[in-house]
């Protein structure tokens, strides 16, 4: 178990370097190598997510340099939870992509970028070093820019360029903040920074750096004032990549990094610095309201789902802003349920595009549910889960967020969160109504190939199972992860206790 963090980076990285060599010999080798790597990563992260002892994180020292000196990977229960979320969706998107990528050329390049993006996300989640985190953010981001522009049509290139401009501004803000932090503390280890911050005067410069970091991560997470790139970028990518970008990418690079820095490094809590949390609350509420209303007017299948992603990210940030135990459990559950649910919805869009070749829902005559029963079923169940209807996993995550809001005395956010769950259902059912329901379908459309159906149905099964076993998941998966955030700067003490010995 000690070397798992290294393997989680080394396996996909080695696969990414092997594919360009092997794929010249035989095209399908790219898929085989990628599949083996992803299966190994999935197995390792499932083991870590359930068997890592809470309160006793793995601290892996690179080159055996003790904690404040070298680079250390710090895998606690929050990291292992995020690893699980990432690797599940990455695995099923890959299964979907095996057939979906028949339409595209250059599958070797696709899987190389795919694995590199996984390396970046795994690294962001596991690293205990601020600059290292920036490097992994850039690895993930650059591969995602390339994947968004993968089709090389004019619209896709434009979306890629726009995404790249916004993403790089965010990265540079984060890098500038890292430079300031290094100038002030002379260290880059998250635990060591946390100790230095605790002893530091809270000058305006201190808060300026926090604002720089938060703006950078907010752009990466596409919260509402910074959201303009997402509705262009996510629909332009191939469907498995849209699923990954909306499902896990914005959560890992935006929400996870933000939560880790706020709670564990800055050590702020609702009681000590309410202003920070009120800002998050307002950002979250604005995302929920504005993105939901914009989503109601969309005519493009994938664009509608992209706006929905912004509003669901709003729920997670709202819950972080409430900041009590219930809300944090809700936030983590929503990360899980939205990654499965929105990933599923984007995969169904890929399935429809694969057979029909059309994304504008006003051009559909309905009735596709008769010809593509599994896609239709998956879409409808996924939509119910994302909207937060029982008995799916999405219901419990929204329930806990609302319970947290009520418990902390925020009645208005609770009402808004409840109300906009219904709006979510409204705009998602718009696609059901226009595309899947009805008598007359488009002639000559068959169900998608078996592997694509298998990927979608597996995600539906996971959503249903997550709902059914939610009260088993809560103590075993969500509670330990939420405890990491709730304990705040105790993180630094734990990391030093385990890692400083060398």
């Amino acid at each position, binding site marked *: 178990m000690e070397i798992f963090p290294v393997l989680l980076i080394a396996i996909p990285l*080695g696969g*990414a370097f092997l594919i360009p060599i092997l794929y010249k010999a035989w095209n399908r080798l790219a898929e085989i190598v990628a599949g083996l790597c992803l299966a190994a990563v999935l197995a390792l992260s499932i083991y870590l997510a359930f068997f890592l002892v809470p309160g006793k994180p793995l601290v892996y020292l690179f*080159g055996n340099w003790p904690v404040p000196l070298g680079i250390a990977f710090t895998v606690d229960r929050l990291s292992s939870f995020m690893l699980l979320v990432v690797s599940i969706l990455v695995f099923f998107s890959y299964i979907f992509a095996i057939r979906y990528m028949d339409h595209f050329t250059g599958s070797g390049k696709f899987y190389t970028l795919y694995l590199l993006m996984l390396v970046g996300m795994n690294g962001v989640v596991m690293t205990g070093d601020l600059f290292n985190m920036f490097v992994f953010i850039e690895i993930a981001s650059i591969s995602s820019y390339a994947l968004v522009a993968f089709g090389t049509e004019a619209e896709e290139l434009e979306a890629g360029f726009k995404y790249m401009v916004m993403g790089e501004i965010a990265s540079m803000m984060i890098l500038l903040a890292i430079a300031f932090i290094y100038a002030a503390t002379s260290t880059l280890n998250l635990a060591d920074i946390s100790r230095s911050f605790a002893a530091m005067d809270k000058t305006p410069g201190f808060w300026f750096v926090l604002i720089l970091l938060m703006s950078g991560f907010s752009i990466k997470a596409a919260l509402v004032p910074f959201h303009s790139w997402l509705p262009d970028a996510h629909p332009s990518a191939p469907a498995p990549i849209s699923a990954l970008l909306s499902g896990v990418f914005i959560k890992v690079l935006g929400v996870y990094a933000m939560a880790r820095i706020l709670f564990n490094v800055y050590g702020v809590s609702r009681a000590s610095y309410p202003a920070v949390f009120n800002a998050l609350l307002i950002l979250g509420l604005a995302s929920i309201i504005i993105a939901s209303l914009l989503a109601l007017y969309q005519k493009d299948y994938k664009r509608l789902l992209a706006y929905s992603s912004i509003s669901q990210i709003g729920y997670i940030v709202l819950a972080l802003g409430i900041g009590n135990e219930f809300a944090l459990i809700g936030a983590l559950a929503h990360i899980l349920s939205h990654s499965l649910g929105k990933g599923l919805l984007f995969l169904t869009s890929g399935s429809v595009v694969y057979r029909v070749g059309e994304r504008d829902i006003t051009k559909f005559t309905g009735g596709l549910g008769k010809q593509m029963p599994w896609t239709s079923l998956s879409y409808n169940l996924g939509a119910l889960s994302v909207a937060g209807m029982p008995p799916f996993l999405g219901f419990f995550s929204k329930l806990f967020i609302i319970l947290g809001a009520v418990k902390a005395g925020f009645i208005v956010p609770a009402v808004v969160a409840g109300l906009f769950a219904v709006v979510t259902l409204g705009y998602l059912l718009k696609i059901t109504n226009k595309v899947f329901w009805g008598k007359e379908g488009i002639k000559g459309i068959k169900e998608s190939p078996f592997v694509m159906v298998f990927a979608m149905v597996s995600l539906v099964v996971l959503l249903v199972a997550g709902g059914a076993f939610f009260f088993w998941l809560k103590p075993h998966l969500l509670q330990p992860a939420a405890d990491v955030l709730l304990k705040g700067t105790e993180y630094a003490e734990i990391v030093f206790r385990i890692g400083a010995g060398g």
Partner: protein
Amino acid sequence: MKGMTPIVKVVARIVGGFIFIYGCYIVLYGHLSPGGGFAGGAIIAACFILSRLAFGTTASQEKSASISSSIFESTGGLLFLLIALLGLFVGGYFFINLFPSFGTPGRLVSAGSIPFSNIAIGIKVAAAILSIFVVLASTKYIFKE
């Protein structure tokens, strides 16, 4: 006529080899003096780019260059990963220096596995910069029709 004027070709022919050797020197002495894998690799790539600019290329040459440079790039990356993993399986820690006290400090044979990492990075960076150049230059062939 393919490529640039005879003056450029003659100068490129004379200088190219020296640039290549200088790049190798920067890579190999990376653990002793400023430079290392990235800087040296960039210089090696400059040598190839110079000859491509001076002598000109055809579409088929661009294609074979892009294939071979991507293979070299992956090989360099794999070598670097292998050195790091050797540290894990032999020395017990990822990226650990396998023989830190071998050789005399300040001489060419010193610093353990750092020179080997530098060579791997040098191969990777040279191939990567060359392939960037090839990709940017070969867009004119892709869209000619």
